[in-house]
């Protein structure tokens, strides 16, 4: 049974309710298996998804609400995967949007079963992936990285980075600089000095 469990951990657990959903044909990059789950798709330890076709929603406008109500609160990410399969989308989509938003669900739209399937696969595959691909490509050279770090301090600009660098010689020196030394740098006014100093010297955690 333990091997079964580990296997299940790498698979999407699909509710028996979804038997016969043509969407399942498009989940190919990840294993999936039927299981007794409340949500439609259990995608990870703390994420789950409900599937809704807009056409179905038009026939059963209350369906989504009741399904969301069944979900336990212990999921961090509650996805409503909406298959946009009608021409006139504005009204039904507005209703779905409102229901999802007011009941703490993240709405994702797919325009084909392929696309819907891909969302499920991706959320599963990326379960533990860091966010770096959406955090912007950063240049990896020293100066860019230094600028990237120092400009987190409000109002510190690129020129200031150069000033600080040439004055103190290294980042550790900048981080250890006194208020006075910081204030001696041209272009770094009183407020910037204070912000820099506080950033470096105030503890990470204000309360223990």
């Amino acid at each position, binding site marked *: 049974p333990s091997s079964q469990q580990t296997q299940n951990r790498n698979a999407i657990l699909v509710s028996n309710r979804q038997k016969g959903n043509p969407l399942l044909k498009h989940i190919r990059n990840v294993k999936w298996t039927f299981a007794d789950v409340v949500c439609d798709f259990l995608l990870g330890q703390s994420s789950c998804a409900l599937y809704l076709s807009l056409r179905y929603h038009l026939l059963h406008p209350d369906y989504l609400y009741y399904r969301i109500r069944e979900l336990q609160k212990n999921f961090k990410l509650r996805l409503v995967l909406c298959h946009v399969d009608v021409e006139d989308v*504005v009204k039904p989509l507005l209703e779905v949007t409102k229901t999802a938003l007011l009941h703490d669900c993240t*709405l994702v739209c797919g325009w084909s079963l392929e696309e819907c399937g891909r969302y499920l696969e991706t959320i599963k595959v990326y379960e533990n992936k860091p966010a770096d691909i959406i955090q912007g490509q950063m240049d990896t050279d020293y100066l860019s990285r230094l600028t990237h770090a120092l400009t987190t301090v409000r109002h510190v600009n690129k020129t200031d980075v150069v000033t600080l660098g040439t004055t103190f010689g290294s980042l550790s020196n900048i981080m250890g600089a006194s208020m006075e030394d910081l204030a001696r740098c041209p272009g770094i006014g009183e407020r910037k000095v204070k912000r820099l100093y506080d950033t470096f010297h105030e503890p990470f955690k*204000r309360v223990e």
Partner: protein
Amino acid sequence: MVLQFHEHIITELLEDSNGGLVILSSGLSLSKLVSSLLLLHSSSQGTLLILSPSSTTLKSKINLHLKTLNPQFYQIPAEITADLPAHHRHSLYTSGSVFFITPRILIVDLLTNKLPTSTISGIVILNAHSISETSTEAFIVRIFRSLNRNAYVRAFSDRPHAMVSGFAKAERTMKCLHIRKLHLWPRFQVYVSQELERDPPDVVDIRVPMTKYMVGIQKAIVEIMDACLKEMRKTNKVDVEDLTVENGLFKSFDEIVRRQLDPIWHTLGKKTKQLVSDLKTLRKLLDYLVRYDAITYLKYLDTLRVSESFRSVWIFAEASYKIFDYAKKRVYHLVRSDGVKLNESSKGIKNKKRKVKGDNKDTEEADVTSSTSSNHGIVLEEVLEEAPKWKVLREILEEVEEERQKQGMLREEVLAEGEDTDNGIVLVACKDERSCLQLEECITNNTKKVMRDEWKKYLLNKVQLRDIVNKKKKPKDPKGFGILDGVTPITHAQNAETSGINKQEHDALLAAASKLRNLAESNHVVEDTPQADSGGHARGKGKRKLGNKNGPIIIDGSGVQSNNKEELTGGKIGMSDSKNEVHTSETSPVSAGRFCETKHGGTSADDMVLRRHTCPDAVARDGKPLPPVHFYALESDQPILDILKPSIIIVYHPDMTFVREIEVYKSENPSKRLKVYFIFYEDSTEVQKFEASIRRENGAFESLIRQKSMMMIPVDQSGHGLGLNSTLDSDSNTPQNSLTRKAGGRKEVDKDMQVIVDMREFMSSLPNVLHQKGMRIIPVTLEVGDYILSPLICVERKSIQDLFASFTSGRLYHQVETMVRYYRIPVLLIEFSQDKSFSFQSASDIGDDVTPNSIISKLSLLALHFPRLRILWSRSLHATSEIFASLKANQDEPDETKAMRVGVPSEEGIVENDVRAENYNTSAVEFLRRLPGVTDSNYRAIMDGCKSLAELALLPVEKLAEIMGGHKAARTLRDFLDAKYPTLL
């Protein structure tokens, strides 16, 4: 002097104090019309605001005309932008002068009541054709009218065809600008035509025959276009009436097609999409055929083939083979080294193949007469076909100069007096800057040299490319360099068969190129050429000379070249004939005499606008003197005629707008003798396009006249219902009935919903639409989010394009991060465009694997990292406003002062409402997380292991490794902290 029909327009316009919409033919000098109107403004009427046009040239033209019309008192209207402080803006608004103002600041000042509307006499809009119900201009007028009924709104457009795109565009535009009167001023209007035709300039219409190959290429392209259009008709997705080759000649064709296809774009097959882009490519090919020289054209085709191959449909069409083949033949062809021309045009491919083999054998035995390269015995023979117009241009210039000298002598005899403002400059107008430069070269040097230089560039380019290709992917597929083969393989099978000849051609090209390169290098030594007058000049000539002496490959000399030409054109269409085509009334005896070099310094202020050019050296080679010439690129859109005041204009690339400008110029200067030459390629699409553009404009006006007669404009256009709770407009825009029924009808609006909107959002149309829906818009500068709907709900709006871009830049991630920090319900609004398809991609574009670049992956990752983020998917602006209204229904109204403070640290650096900030030194945490070696998984451990950044800076690497749980990451971090800052800066 002011044109009479301009006066007519102004009088008509002034009759209605409410304002009006003026549409006039392009080229009838909208800028002058507006300038004359502005001069009538007096400060007692109140302040006049002109919405800044997006084209800066229109603005500078208006300024220039204001200056010339009224040199004593002219005052260029100042520009009001967001950079001016509010109190300064206020004093300008009440000054009674004329200003340009950016729409964004105007709408913000209107919404915040910073603009005292009673002091405004009127608003002038210069781009009526680009206005729609949702544009900021419409928003401005709606609010402005609600506050001030007496002011006028005057809108202008000189793009009639843009005023008829879409259903009843003119009427809709008038409605949203609250204008009652439409004034149409086509070129064929009686006042206009009378005035412009009273004293028309002398026009010489020259039809230059194209070369045989040009004709062939043009025919092939049109054939393929036609085939593409037929294919398109089969799809039944586009209105068949629009699908004509004539329409296909214009840029607006893409628009016609896209407008119909955009909403269903994602449902289209790859083939249809490809057809659309192919048609665009083909139109360019047609245009470039008459614009570029033969070599540049070939180069363009080469790059096209590399970038388009295997995707395009057209490239595999039977006729496209001809395009490539003819284009090549205009530049070079292959001959066996014994001089026998290679017969390529034969259709039997087997024959060809055999023949080539034969050649190979021959040459192996004979071991080639010629030098370096070809052990295959195939050498290149240059053709370097010149553009037929070049010669004609030179002839005209020579003729003009003869004429001028004759007259000059006469004038000297008679009297040297009289206001001779004639500076003698000949204006040559062509499409783009590139053509300008090349024609200038052709005139100063000579055409052969120009072609030779292009050829040199072409060959050298090939060598470089070869070098690169060799280095990069040698083992891959030696025959697949696409770019280097001259002949298009039609199918793979044929490709295999023809590869033999391609390879030879290829080698011949490379041989020629490397020869050239060697020459170029050796030429650096041989520096002292006799003609050395200027650096670049001398080098060019030197090369030529050397090329002359050795190298049977580079066959130089006019002799060979003209022979080739005879051979090619069969002597029938030879350029020498073109002289006969020039129907000129005056033929003047050659009068040898002084070369007239006029330095014209008359127009001081505008010098920077112009690229001056006189060509004193032009006599040198041909012995015939040429007048000073100025080349002007139509694309640059300068008031060239007013600045230069030419008396002879050569229109090298005919253009309707420019023709009108010439007419206007002539009727403004009736005493001036003006002669205009048009150079057309006979039976070309150039002519077709020129004529079609006139027909098209006339058609647009006829349609506008019909529309005008049937227009339903409410009498009280400035009337009621314009207030904040305007229901008239919003009703028509909200097809949402059932929902409003549920929510108890329109009552919700009465609550006076308000939305706080970031200043920067006024570039978009959403604030306008929200206002139409009846919400109060409060513009402020927001640090976090774009729209604040309630104390809990903060929305970041992204159009599709923005969404992709801000995912790539990482901006979205950080925006969401701060929203999540400060608001209970952070929302990402993904807003699709009404007239584009509602989807990211069609099913076929999705691919088989999970890939990091896909938008699906990025959105998934965003959702995973910010599970609290809510996503809105909106079909259109109007759908967005519906969603906003329904989300606000049960929420409190947002507070403006609070919203502004969110995310902005106070003096102490503490950020209000920041739950995290109470517990964490947020900027230190942020800083820490951006250091190399620090990751999502170890930064918490670091915060546990040391107190502050200052402390971290002192930790030795061993200790860091212990805290971070890894030596490598610790090393990375330590190295970065200690890295010496590069001093050489």
